[in-house]
């Protein structure tokens, strides 16, 4: 299929550059409803993703422009290679954008992205995890299994472009979606739900995860509503990743991206504060865009264009140092290309987690939000508390319901970061972040 497509690219008129990704994916999936199997399945797919670049005079003004368009070739479509390339050229010829290039050959870093343990016997891994899960749940009083899903995936990507860049990478991932139920003597029930995705088997501590989620489920049974007002708020566990964002949606990543800058959507400037006017009074915020983090979900030796992966300082002590920039936007803004953002790495602070609530009045410690997606444009956020704790000295009261709201960029100016760190798939950083004061809406 690849050879047919390359020949079609050679023959076609209007192909000024191209890039090609050959992607194969296999997925082994195992589902439990309560303790019984609900579904057992496997899936395989393969595709060629082609991006074609066409240079032409702009419709308005006639300046030389570049357009690009992607098409996908699926198994069995080899005979349609010429037609598909023609469609891509036509679409690319319609869009008038400032010219930009593609990266040439490069030496790509070695990055840990594929775990042999998941590659050898994915179905066996899924079965073994299911057995581990059952044993771990048996050890937890007052808790039962509602459902579990295990996805063991492997993806292989071969990349090449018209400038001679060429690379190959394999990725594995293990997804565990787990729901536990806790029940009290009066028949009240609550659930705790978590989804964990990691690149390597050793990155998933299933017994530890079950123990933590079982405790959350039991605490949910006696949780009350939070108070209303402005309070210090400590964020840990899944709530932390929700606030900082995921591999595809991180406000810090979007705001520091050359594309956002090019489109006029970020007010950030190199050498200036990232706190949107707030005075820094907390631990200094230092952030790296890390595309080479071992087992990082957003790690890869090269990005979609073929720019080598790197670990780039983005924010240092609350000041923007670099915009991360794919090839196109690097050229537009005359910056060095840095490739994709990768994983979010935040440097730790100096406080121990256990000290973060000491000496404070009521503090809300949130371990899970129902949903939390800070607006990357404004930084505003609001999220319902799925589970948290009200801490008053040594008193600890579980809470749920109500909401926590604030502004990520201004509130980070007064945040403290724990010295202990945690790896959450696409986040490496402090295990706990304490915001000095956020708005809590409760009873």
């Amino acid at each position, binding site marked *: 299929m690849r050879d047919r497509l390359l020949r079609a690219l050679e023959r076609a008129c209007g192909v000024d550059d191209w890039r090609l990704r050959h992607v194969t994916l296999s997925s082994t*999936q195992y589902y439990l*409803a*309560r303790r019984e*199997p*609900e*579904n*057992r*399945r*496997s*899936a*395989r*797919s*393969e595709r060629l993703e082609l991006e074609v670049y066409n240079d032409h005079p702009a419709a308005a003004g006639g300046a030389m422009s570049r*357009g690009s*368009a992607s*098409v*996908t070739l*699926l*198994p*069995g479509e080899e005979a349609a290679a010429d037609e598909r390339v023609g*469609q*891509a050229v*036509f*679409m690319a010829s*319609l*869009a008038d*954008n400032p010219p930009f290039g593609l990266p040439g050959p490069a030496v790509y870093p070695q990055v840990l992205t594929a775990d042999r343990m998941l590659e050898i016997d994915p179905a066996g891994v899924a079965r073994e995890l299911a057995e581990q899960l059952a044993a771990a749940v048996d050890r937890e009083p007052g808790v*039962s299994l*509602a*459902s579990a899903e295990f996805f063991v995936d492997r993806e292989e990507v071969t990349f090449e472009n018209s400038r001679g860049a060429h690379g190959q990478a394999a990725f594995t991932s293990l997804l565990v979606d787990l*729901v536990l*139920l806790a029940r009290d003597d009066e028949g009240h029930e609550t*659930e705790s*739900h978590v989804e964990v995705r990691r690149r390597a088997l050793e990155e998933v501590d299933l017994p530890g995860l079950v123990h933590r989620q079982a405790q959350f489920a039991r605490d*949910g049974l006696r949780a009350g509503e939070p108070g*209303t*007002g402005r309070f210090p708020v400590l964020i840990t566990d899944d709530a932390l990743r929700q606030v900082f964002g995921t591999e595809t949606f991180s406000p810090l990543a979007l705001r520091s991206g050359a594309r956002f800058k090019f*489109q*006029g*959507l970020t*007010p950030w400037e190199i050498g200036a504060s990232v706190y*949107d006017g707030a005075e820094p009074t907390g631990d200094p915020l230092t952030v790296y865009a890390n595309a080479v983090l071992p087992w990082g979900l957003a790690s890869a030796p090269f990005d979609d264009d073929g720019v080598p992966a790197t670990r780039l300082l983005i924010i240092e002590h609350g000041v923007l140092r670099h915009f991360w920039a794919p090839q196109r936007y690097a050229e537009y803004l005359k910056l060095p290309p840095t490739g994709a953002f990768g994983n979010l790495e935040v440097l730790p602070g100096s406080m121990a987690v256990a000290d973060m609530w000491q000496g404070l009045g009521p503090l809300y410690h949130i371990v899970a939000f*129902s*949903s939390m997606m800070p*607006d990357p*444009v*404004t930084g505003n*956020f*609001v*999220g*319902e508390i*799925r589970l948290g704790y009200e801490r008053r000295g040594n008193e600890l009261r579980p809470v749920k*319901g*109500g*909401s*926590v*709201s604030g502004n990520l960029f201004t509130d980070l100016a007064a945040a403290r970061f724990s010295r202990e760190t945690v790896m959450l798939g696409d986040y490496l950083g402090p295990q706990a972040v304490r915001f000095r004061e956020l*708005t*809590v*809406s409760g009873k």
Partner: protein
Amino acid sequence: MSIRVLPPELEAIRGRLPELVAGLEARAPYAAILATSTSALQVSVNNREQQVSEGPRSQGAVVTAWNGAYLQERAVGSLALDALATATHTLAQELELQPGPAPEPGAPRDEHLAMPAQVDPASRTARDKLDLCRRYHQAVRGLDPHIVNAAISYSEVAEAKVFANRTRLLSQTVYRIRFQVALFVSDGQKVQRDWLSRDGTGGLEIAQASDEELHALAEEAVALLRAGRIEPGFYDLVFDPSVSGVMAHEAFGHGVETDMFVKGRAKAAEYLGKRVGSPLVNLLDDPTVPGAYGSYRFDDEGQIAAPTTILREGVFVQGLTDLFSALKLGIPRTANGRRQGYDRKAYARMSNTFFAPGTTPVDELIGSVERGVYLRKTSSGMEDPKGWGVQVEAHIGEEIVNGRRTGRLFSPVGITGYVPDILASVSAVGNDLALDGGTCGKGWKEWVPVASGGPHLRLKARLG
């Protein structure tokens, strides 16, 4: 007009699927095949860039067999008959047969079911769709000096499916269209955004907005630069149809997906036949709503689309099923067995979920609020089927004083509460109805196109 054509790659295998099913049923008590072909086009224009490109595209099939106790499946990213035959053969070998009841295949049907469209997207070129976006971009980019970027986007997804089991051979083609005008405004210090969306199943007739709507969008985007944060507390509220819809979807829709009943994850399971809301509240899930974004003619398990009344006058009367949960619970199937793609399993999922309209004119509904907030445009929401908590985020809240909107805005506004309390607090239901399209996940994955909506509602809830 109707879009009737099945893509050639599906037309070529449509008639051959029943024999593959028959071969698998030589071992399995029940078997089925779903073959899908999806293609997409994405067009965008903003102040700095333009893009015309194919969107995510896939072709593949999933072979399903019931082994007496649960479903076993093989999915392949190919529509070649030999690949399907191999998957079927392999699955037959893998079956772990057990005694147990088998699903009913349904009454015999062999037909192609199409969705209507006024302007078939296939009758217009990519250039036409780019020109459409350019025209809207030209119309909005200069509407206010605060606008720093105007982004117009158009996307179409052509979704074709063939389902076969022992008695059924069904096919359908659906176009899902989304069109959005987004404005980014700045006062030199901060940046805000607002948007206008159109979506549905149908054709290019969906992608349009009036000059009045574009001017109103620009005014509201600029006004949002002055928006503050709401003081936390309980308020008298008026929801617009967008907020009503997400409340319907998150508050009660997810909680009545009956795969959650099988897993013990749904509080609603204890409330069948019981009151959970005000007698003014009627809630439906209906994949047959003409032109709605979440519409289809049959679900991914071959059940013909039909409306389901979930709440009738505040009483929970029926949940939404997939094949597995209907069989396990011994309840009638509804047409809600849906997959993210051929490579993912089916779950019980919503389609178009909405509160039914009432009788109160919208002006009267707002006019009856002495002091409260008018909430518009939902930006996100999340379900809690076991705890019956709910979170909905509205992009805009506007103060109401003495029955009048004051123009004082808040953004964003979080709405939280306990589902029965919120539903019981509904004190008036508007006589309007509108649905918005979106993408719905099960937890944090398994995305499917849906719509949600309803009339304006007057109620009480906690804001933060």
